[in-house]
């Protein structure tokens, strides 16, 4: 069997095209699946987009999922029970229009909590996730006072039955960590998963530095806002419909 000139060119073109495509595809794959021994880098910035028009008043799927995922359902007095995400209800006094939104650590690019931390326990990871290193947290709670979003909690009591992946303990400050243990595995935070499964699909999560990601495309084409944008913190969590 012989191939004529036209067939040869077609096959040759396909080979060249796939060779040209392959490196690009590999780059995307590498950018998304970090191997466990690789450090996080600032090439990525994890962010969340909240569509408040889809967030309904009676729903608290995100809060429940967060509590379950991070083992926050402990037998602790309600007034001091740590809370990583909460539902906030806003009411326009003039019109009576009510809307709700989930409020948690906004994962600022310039986090005030990290600014005031005397030990360096509050820090921003290279990929934008703001964390507390509990090993060096002394429980002074300056960060809780500095946070404009009231996003952090202090653990007042001894804890038992923590989840193996989520070490937590008395005398340290904690907050939403964007489910860092899941993100490091290539999964999405528990609240986002729950909102998409049981809630109003109001939450989206992704790499806002990757122009190909859904969240970056939405941020580029749709209106969104930071809460307390006047503080110029460049938050990783942004809201729509406020």
């Amino acid at each position: 069997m012989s191939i004529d000139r036209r067939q040869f060119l077609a096959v040759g073109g396909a080979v060249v095209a796939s060779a040209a495509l392959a490196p690009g595809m590999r780059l995307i794959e590498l950018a998304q699946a970090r191997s466990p021994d690789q450090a996080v880098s600032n090439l990525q910035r994890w962010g969340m987009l909240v569509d408040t028009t889809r967030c309904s008043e009676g729903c608290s799927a995100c809060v429940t999922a967060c509590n379950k995922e991070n083992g926050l359902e402990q037998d602790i007095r309600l007034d001091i029970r740590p809370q990583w995400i909460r539902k906030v209800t806003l009411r326009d006094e003039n019109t009576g229009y009510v809307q709700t939104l989930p409020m948690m650590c906004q994962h600022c690019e310039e986090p005030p909590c990290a600014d005031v931390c005397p030990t360096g326990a509050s820090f921003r990871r290279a990929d934008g996730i703001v964390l507390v290193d509990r090993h060096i947290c002394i429980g002074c709670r300056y960060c809780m006072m500095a946070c404009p979003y009231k996003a952090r909690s202090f653990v007042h009591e001894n804890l038992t039955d923590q989840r193996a992946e989520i070490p937590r303990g008395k005398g340290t400050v904690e907050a939403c960590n964007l489910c860092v243990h899941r993100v490091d595995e290539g999964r999405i935070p528990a609240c986002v998963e729950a909102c998409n499964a049981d809630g109003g699909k109001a939450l989206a999560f992704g790499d806002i530095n990757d122009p190909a990601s859904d969240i970056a495309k939405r941020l580029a084409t749709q209106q969104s806002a930071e809460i307390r944008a006047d503080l110029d913190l460049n938050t990783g969590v942004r809201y729509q419909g406020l």
Partner: protein
Amino acid sequence: MAINNHKKLVLGAWIAAIVVIAAFFAAAYALSGGPATPVPSPLTGVYPGKGKKCVAPVAVMRRYHMQFLLHQRDLTVHEGVRTKRFLLTNCVDCHADPKTHSVLGKHGFCASCHAYAAVQIDCFSCHSPHPERVTTAFADDLAPQHSRLAEMVKATAITQIQSDPVDGSQ
């Protein structure tokens, strides 16, 4: 004759001394309640771990496990590195006693040795002393999503264990 008498006296004294010493040991044996017990060891009754061998030679682990853990903890918290080899959860998964599902308690892998050496450990006021599958009430929910990465991490950990000689420099 005098010499003979003297010899008899010495012999008598020896016999008396042997009888007294024998009586002393017999009494000590009776009081101690049977055969001599071995020197107490922190490893008595401790479950050694479900793996065939540790992530580093036993002598190295005994001397340097805390350095490994401290190094790993900073890498994990600050840089997101989650290699399994020196991850505390990996230690707990392997060394937790199958009966108590814990590394603490009287014969717990961590607790028994630390009690023996009188070194207090704070790790488990925050970290779980139980393997994840025991603490997680919803482990079944997580399992399917976990599997792909868990396999990947497992493969990495195993190849590392096989290929990296540990010299304590980490």
